[in-house]
C-alpha cells in the first residue's frame, strides 16, 4: 500500500514539475518584434469577400493592397498603384504600377493582377449580384466604374460615369492572378480559399504582412512581406488575438501580453490612463448609436396585418420631433459612454468634417417643451397622465435592442424614464441580433408571413465607410425590406440622394448634403443619441511611432493598415538598455518558423475525437476494474 501511495505522490509531483516552472517564467511576451493586437471579435473568414467583421477587414488589408490607400489624413496615397490620375474629360482614371513590384512569393505584380481583381467585381455588378457577402464590390458600383482595361503591364485605365473621386476609396483587395486566375466572381467567394497554406510561407499577397496561421477563436498570425515596398513596418510579425471578454483583453494588455487593445469600456479606459507604459486614445468614430422609430407607412400609407408600429403617431414627424426634446443626450454621453463621444444630430458623423452640417436648430433637453409640443401636435393626456394617440388609445411603445452592446440597455433605461415623464409608456426588450433583424424586417423583405416589422422603437448602432453616401443611403425608400430599419420613405430625400451622387463638384454636393441633413433631422426617423468614440489602448514600452489616422482617430483599426507600418522600436528610441532576450528572439524570428501546422490535423476529421472518447471510456473502465480488484483483495485479507 505504501508503495502505491508513493506512486500517487510521484504522479502529483510530476504534474507539479510540469506546471511549476511555468510559475517562475515571467508571464507576458518577451521583448521581441512581434506586434500583438487584441480584438473582441473572432475572425469569421480569411476570404476578403466572406468576412463581415472589422477584424476580417484588418486581416485582408494587411495581406493585400488596395488600388489606392489612405494616408494619415485619409488623403489618397499610392498603394498597389504608384500613381493615379483623372483624365481631363473626367470619364476615366489612369493607374500606373511600379515595374519592379513583386508578390510575396516573388512573382511579378503587374496590371494584369489589378485588372483581374477589379474585373471580378465588375462581372458581379454586370450580373446584378455580389461577390460573397457583397460588402466589397459595391465600391466600384458606387464609384460608377463601368470598364477596366490594361493596355500594358504598368497601366490600368478605368472608365467611370461618376464625377466624384470615390474610385480612390474602394476596399477591394488586389489579389494575385497567378494564384486565383481560374476563379470567377461566383467561385472566388468560396470560403476556405484564402486560408493560409500549410507550408507556413503565408497567403500570397502584396500587402505589408502575410497571414501564416489562423486558429479559429484564438488568433491569426502574420509574417512580414520582404517584397513590400511602400512603408516598412518595424515589427517582424503581427498577431491578432480574439477575446470574448473585454476584461480578459485589458488584463492581457496590462500584463504586456498585448500591445494594442481595440474597443474597451469607458471605465477601463479611465483606469488605463494611470497605467504606466499604456496610452489610451479615444478616436472619433464614423458612426453612432441611434434611437430609431418604426415609421412604416410614412410616404406610402401601407399597413402590416398583425404587425407594424403600434400607433400611427410614429408616422407623425411632429410626434417624433416632440420626443426629441425628452432625450438628454448629454446625460447619455456622460453616463453611458463615460463622456467619450459627442451628442448626436445628423446622419453624417462629424468625423467627416467636410460633409457634416449641424441642423439650424438643435433640440435641447426640455421635458416641458416636449409636453407642449405633444399637446400642440394633438397628443392629449388622459386622467392618469398617459399620452393618447389620435385614435384615443394610450401610447405604449415597444423599444427593442440587440444584446451585442451592454450600453443599449443602459440607454433604454434612460429613455423609458424620460418618455415616461411626458406620459409615453415604453417597454424595453433585448434580443439577439438575428432574432431582432427578423423581428424588424418588413414584408418587403420577401416573406410577408414571417416579416412584420413588429416593433415601435429601437436602439442600435451603425458605422460607415469614408464616403457619406453610405449613411445617407439606408434612409432611401428602396432600402425598405433591406437595410432600412426606420422604414422611413420620402421621395424628396430620394431625389436629393440621386442628385448628390452625380453632383458636378464638392461644393455642389455639400449644398445638397446640407439640405438632406436638415430635412432628415427635422423629420427625425432617428434621434442619433451620440457619436460614440472608439476607445483603444496601446503599450508604448515595446513599440513607438503610434500615429492616429486621421489625427482625431485611432492608430490601428482605422481606415487602413497604415498604422501597422509606421511603428518603430521603443527601446531604441528611449535609449534604455534592451532586454537580453531581444537579440536571441530577433534571431529566431528571422528564420522561418516551424509553426505547428494546422493542416495535418484538420484533414483527419472525426476519427481522433472518437479515439479520445474511446480512450476516456477505457480509462473509466480500467478505473472501475482496478477498484474491483482492490475490493477482491480486500475481501481475501
Amino acid at each position, binding site marked *: 500500500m505504501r508503495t502505491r501511495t508513493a506512486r500517487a505522490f510521484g504522479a502529483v509531483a510530476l504534474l507539479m514539475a510540469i506546471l511549476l516552472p511555468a510559475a517562475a517564467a515571467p508571464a507576458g511576451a518577451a521583448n521581441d518584434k512581434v506586434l500583438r493586437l487584441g480584438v473582441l471579435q473572432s475572425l469569421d473568414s480569411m476570404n476578403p469577400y466572406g468576412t463581415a467583421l472589422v477584424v476580417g477587414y484588418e486581416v485582408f488589408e494587411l495581406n493585400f493592397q488596395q488600388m489606392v490607400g489612405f494616408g494619415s489624413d485619409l488623403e489618397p496615397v499610392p498603394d498597389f498603384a504608384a500613381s493615379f490620375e483623372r483624365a481631363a474629360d473626367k470619364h476615366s482614371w489612369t493607374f500606373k504600377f511600379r515595374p519592379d513590384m513583386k508578390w510575396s512569393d516573388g512573382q511579378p505584380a503587374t496590371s494584369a493582377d489589378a485588372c483581374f481583381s477589379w474585373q471580378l467585381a465588375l462581372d458581379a455588378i454586370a450580373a446584378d449580384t455580389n461577390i460573397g457577402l457583397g460588402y466589397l464590390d459595391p465600391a466600384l458600383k458606387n464609384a460608377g466604374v463601368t470598364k477596366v482595361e490594361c493596355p500594358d503591364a504598368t497601366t490600368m485605365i478605368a472608365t467611370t460615369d461618376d464625377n466624384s473621386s470615390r474610385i480612390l476609396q474602394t476596399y477591394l483587395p488586389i489579389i494575385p492572378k497567378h494564384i486565383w486566375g481560374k476563379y470567377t466572381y461566383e467561385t472566388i467567394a468560396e470560403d476556405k480559399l484564402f486560408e493560409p497554406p500549410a507550408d507556413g510561407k503565408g497567403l500570397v499577397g502584396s500587402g505589408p504582412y502575410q497571414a501564416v496561421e489562423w486558429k479559429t477563436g484564438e488568433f491569426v498570425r502574420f509574417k512580414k512581406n520582404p517584397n513590400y515596398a511602400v512603408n516598412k513596418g518595424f515589427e517582424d510579425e503581427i498577431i491578432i488575438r480574439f477575446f470574448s471578454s*473585454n*476584461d480578459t483583453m*485589458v488584463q492581457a494588455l496590462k500584463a504586456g501580453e498585448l500591445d494594442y487593445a481595440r474597443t474597451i469600456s469607458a471605465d477601463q479606459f479611465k483606469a488605463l490612463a494611470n497605467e504606466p507604459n499604456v496610452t489610451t486614445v479615444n478616436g472619433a468614430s464614423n458612426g453612432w448609436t441611434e434611437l430609431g422609430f418604426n415609421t412604416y407607412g410614412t410616404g406610402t400609407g401601407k399597413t402590416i396585418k398583425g404587425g407594424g408600429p403600434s400607433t400611427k403617431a410614429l408616422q407623425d414627424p411632429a410626434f417624433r420631433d416632440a420626443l426629441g426634446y425628452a432625450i438628454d443626450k448629454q446625460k447619455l454621453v456622460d453616463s453611458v459612454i463615460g463622456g467619450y463621444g459627442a451628442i448626436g444630430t445628423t446622419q453624417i458623423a462629424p468625423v467627416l468634417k467636410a460633409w457634416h452640417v449641424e441642423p439650424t436648430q438643435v433640440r435641447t433637453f426640455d421635458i416641458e417643451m416636449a409636453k407642449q409640443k405633444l399637446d400642440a401636435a394633438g397628443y392629449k393626456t388622459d386622467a392618469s397622465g398617459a399620452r393618447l394617440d389620435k385614435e384615443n388609445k394610450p401610447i405604449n411603445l415597444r423599444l427593442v435592442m440587440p444584446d451585442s452592446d451592454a450600453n443599449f440597455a443602459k440607454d433604454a433605461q434612460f429613455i423609458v424614464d424620460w418618455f415616461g415623464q411626458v406620459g409615453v409608456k415604453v417597454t424595453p426588450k433585448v434580443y439577439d441580433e438575428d432574432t431582432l433583424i427578423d423581428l424588424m424586417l418588413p414584408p418587403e423583405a420577401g416573406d410577408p408571413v414571417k416579416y412584420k416589422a413588429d416593433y415601435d422603437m429601437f436602439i442600435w448602432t451603425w458605422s460607415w465607410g469614408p464616403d457619406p453616401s453610405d449613411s445617407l443611403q439606408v434612409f432611401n425608400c428602396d432600402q425598405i425590406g433591406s437595410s432600412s430599419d426606420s422604414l422611413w420613405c420620402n421621395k424628396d430625400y430620394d431625389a436629393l440622394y440621386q442628385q448628390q451622387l452625380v453632383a458636378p463638384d464638392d461644393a455642389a454636393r455639400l449644398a445638397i448634403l446640407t439640405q438632406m441633413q436638415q430635412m432628415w433631422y427635422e423629420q427625425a426617423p432617428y434621434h442619433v443619441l451620440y457619436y460614440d468614440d472608439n476607445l483603444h489602448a496601446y503599450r508604448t514600452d515595446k513599440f513607438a511611432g503610434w500615429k492616429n489616422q486621421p489625427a482625431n482617430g485611432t492608430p490601428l483599426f482605422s481606415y487602413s493598415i497604415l498604422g501597422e507600418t509606421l511603428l518603430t522600436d521603443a527601446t531604441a528610441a528611449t535609449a534604455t538598455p534592451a532586454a537580453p532576450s531581444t537579440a536571441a528572439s530577433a534571431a529566431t524570428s528571422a528564420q522561418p518558423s516551424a509553426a505547428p501546422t494546422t493542416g495535418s490535423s484538420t484533414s483527419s476529421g472525426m476519427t481522433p475525437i472518437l479515439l479520445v472518447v474511446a480512450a476516456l471510456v477505457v480509462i473509466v473502465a480500467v478505473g472501475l476494474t482496478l477498484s474491483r480488484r482492490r475490493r477482491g483483495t480486500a475481501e481475501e485479507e
Partner: protein
Amino acid sequence: MTASAAARPTLRGERLRLRLRDLRRFTRRYWGRTDGVIGLAILVIFAALAIAPDLFVGRLETVTTASAPPLAPPGGTHLFGSDELGRDMLNLTVHGARISMIIGLMATFITVVLGAAIGIASGYVGGWVDNVLMRITDFFLVLPTFVLAVILAPLILELVGDDAEVVGIKATLIVIVVVIGLTSWATTARIIRSQTLSVKRRMFVDRARVIGGGSRHIMASHILPNVMNLVVANAVLTFAGAVFTETTLSFIGLGDPFQPSWGQILFAAEAAGAPGLGAWWYIVPPATSVVLVILSFTLVGNALDEILNPRSRVRR
C-alpha cells in the same frame, strides 16, 4: 415514517398523532444539526430580503434615480459602493435576491411537480407506462443539462411570447425558469420512482386496493404522503441547483438586463470590466449572495435528506 408505524392499524386520529410525534422527533433531530441550523438561518435572512426588498433598501434604483457617483468604492452612505451607472450596490444586491430567489422557487416548483408526478406514476402504475416514462427520464438524465439549457432558452422565448408576464416576472426570466425546470426534473423523477416502488410493496397500499381505492386515490393519498419527505429534501437541493444554473445562464448573457438577478449583476460587472478595474465591490456582494444561498440550501437539503432518508447518499 417508519414501516412499523405505517403497518399498525390506524384510525385517522391515531395517524395524526403519529404524524405529530414524527414531526416533533424530526424537529428535535434537525435542531441537533448545526449545519442545518446555520443553513436555515442564512436562508431566513435572504428570504426576508427577497420578500420585502423595498423595506430594507427602498425601491430598485434605476439609471435616473442612481444615488452615487459611478463605481464609487464602499463607504459612507453607500455601504457596498456603486456600479458603473452610480446605482447603489446594496440596493441592487437586495433586489437581486428577489429576482434570483423567485426564479429559483419557480424552477424548483416545476422540477418537483414534474419529477414527483412522473416518478409516482411510473413507480406505481409500472408495466409499459413505467418503461416509457423511464426511457424518457433516462434520456433527459443523460443530456448535458447546461448545453441543452443554453440551446432551449431562445426557443422557449419564442414559444411563450414576448409579452408574457407571471407574478411580475417577465418572459425573458420565465425562459430561464422553464429551461431549468425542463432540464432538471429527471433526477427527481428517478428518486421518487424508487421510493414509490418501495412504498408500494408495503402492506397498506395493498389494503387500500382491497377496500377499493382507485389508482388516483391511492397515488394521491397513500403514496404521495409517504414520498413527501423525499420530495421536500429533493426540492431544497433542486433549489440550490436552480440558483446555480440561473447565475451561470445570466452570466453568459442569457439574462434580462432590465431585471437584475445576481447572475445578471455579475454579467454587467464583467462587461464593465470590474475585475480588472479592481472594483471588487461590484462583484463580491452578488457573488457572496449566490454562494451563501446555494450553500444554505445545500446545508438544509443535506440535513433534511439525512434525517428523513437514512440510506440516502449525496449525489450531484
